[in-house]
């Protein structure tokens, strides 16, 4: 990986140190704010660590407790995965559909690009306040609008069956970021590809599945990974929109860890919880990456193949 280069006369010792000086801020930050805490957290997960008083080494007991004696752990895990299973595909598909719409060659489409992106710049605090008011079961405008078309809306935030849906709807409001990533990628596809396909008689649907989708598979991969990670860590909206309720129906894993740490002060146990999710995320990312070789199509490979 590191080829030894012939020493040039100007390549003095000072010059050799220079690159490290440039990256020094990150190295310090990495040690102090990332690696240090990461290792501490792993060590803490092996302790019974109250916020005051002596920490006691208990080996893997935190993990055993988590897997065998804490039903909330499984409940939170199931709810979080359920959320991810609804949210990730929904978000991906809507982002892609929106991106396709705003790449249509019609006038004024840029205004819609701005409108669709706008909620993505809004804080989770504001999102939860605004949607909380819309979903309000007494004065909420959503159920009123639904009643106009003859639908009796549920008690969104009060009914344990529907509370998770409110979080999906409110989270999906920020789909703009992902839409923009797809948008710039689709924009970058050379128009000649479509023209050639048109001449060959391929319709819009055929063009979409044989040109657009294959070209943007690396972006799809990127978006799948980032949205899975984001969904598994959702916390702000849960804290502010539902508070984990009703009846703990939205007691997401992020909230479970947060409360174990800052409400119940079981710092060792919360560290074990967090590490478990970290490992899940690592494994999931690895699986997605592994699978990508079968469905992700890289431009570089195409070029190489073309030269043969």
């Amino acid at each position, binding site marked *: 990986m*590191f080829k030894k280069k012939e020493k040039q006369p100007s390549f003095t010792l000072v010059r050799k140190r220079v690159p490290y000086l440039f990256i020094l801020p990150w190295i310090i930050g990495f040690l102090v*704010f990332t690696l240090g805490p990461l290792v501490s957290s792993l060590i803490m997960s092996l302790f019974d660590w109250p916020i005051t008083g002596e920490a006691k080494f208990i080996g893997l007991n935190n993990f055993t407790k988590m897997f065998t004696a804490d039903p909330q752990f499984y409940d939170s895990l199931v709810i979080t995965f359920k959320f991810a299973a609804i949210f990730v595909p929904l978000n991906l598909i809507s982002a892609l559909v929106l991106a396709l719409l705003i790449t249509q060659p019609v006038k004024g489409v840029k205004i819609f690009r701005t409108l669709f992106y706008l909620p993505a710049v809004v804080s989770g605090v504001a999102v939860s306040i*605004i949607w909380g008011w819309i979903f309000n079961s007494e004065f909420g405008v959503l159920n009123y609008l639904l009643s106009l078309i003859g639908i009796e809306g549920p008690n969104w935030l009060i009914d344990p069956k529907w509370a998770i849906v409110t979080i999906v709807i409110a989270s999906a409001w920020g789909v703009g970021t992902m839409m923009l990533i797809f*948008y*710039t990628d689709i924009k970058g596809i050379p128009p000649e590809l479509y023209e050639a396909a048109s001449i060959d008689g391929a319709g819009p649907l055929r063009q979409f599945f044989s040109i657009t989708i294959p070209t943007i598979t690396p972006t799809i991969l990127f978006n799948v990974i980032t949205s899975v990670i984001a969904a598994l860590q959702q916390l702000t909206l849960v804290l502010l929109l539902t508070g984990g309720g009703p009846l703990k129906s939205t007691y997401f894993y992020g909230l479970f*860890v947060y409360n174990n740490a800052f409400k119940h002060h079981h710092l060792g146990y919360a*560290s074990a919880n967090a590490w478990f999710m970290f490992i899940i995320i690592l494994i999931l990312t690895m699986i997605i990456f592994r699978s990508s070789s079968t469905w992700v199509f890289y431009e570089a490979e195409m070029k190489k193949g073309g030269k043969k």
Partner: protein
Amino acid sequence: MRITKSHKIIVYSILVILSLYFLFPFAWALITALKTEGEAFSFPPKFSPDVPQFGNFIEAWKSQPFGTYFKNSVIVTVMTTIGQIISCSLVAYGFARYDFKYKNILFILLLSTMMIPWDVTMIPLYMEFNLFGWINTLKPLIVPAFFGSAYNIFLLRQFLMNIPKDLESAARMDGANEFQIFYKIFLPIMKGPLTLIAVLNILLVWNDYLGPLIYLNDQSKYTMALGLAAFRGVHELQIIPIMAMTLVMIIPPVIVFAFAQKYIVEGVSGSIK
């Protein structure tokens, strides 16, 4: 591509219908903020106040120390942006323009930090900042920004990799030292991508709720996000001032976005290529 008229009509209708989902919540927040209490708590809801109560904004602003919250948010946002610009440009330059031992391993390490969930480091970081005596100050929110962030460094490095190598060789011939080359030649070139990371940082930090929630205790230290959430937590039924302040909180990021849209649109594609 030729576009038929019916195609156009379909596209526009879909666009308009979808806009409702993205825009209506903003409109509803504004309508609510301008209502009287009687109007806000009426059912069926009224879609416009009889007389828009613009005074609601002033009353809401005065009801809590929102001036202080706003000031704290501005301090944290400005300071972190300065910190990110300085640190990320230096680090990205080091990774992009030099060869050195362990460079690849260090860079992979940098990228992999992006995958670490927030809550894994949350508890030790809290204890560390507690040890420094930084809890209930703005420092835990500001200081880490001066040590770079992986995503921003990655964005800048991608940009710097594409600049031809002769640029610094020429400057070296002229006797410029390494830091002068960075400062006088490369920093001006990086203006575009640096604007992008500034904008991304402003949006991220201004909107952050969890950081302030963990590190700040006193109202006098609260940021807008935390102050607003706390206000709603205690006075859940005062929906009018809550909505008014929600809108006030939204305005700065929307303005930043309006000015920087070009950079954001161009920037997101650079991040994955």
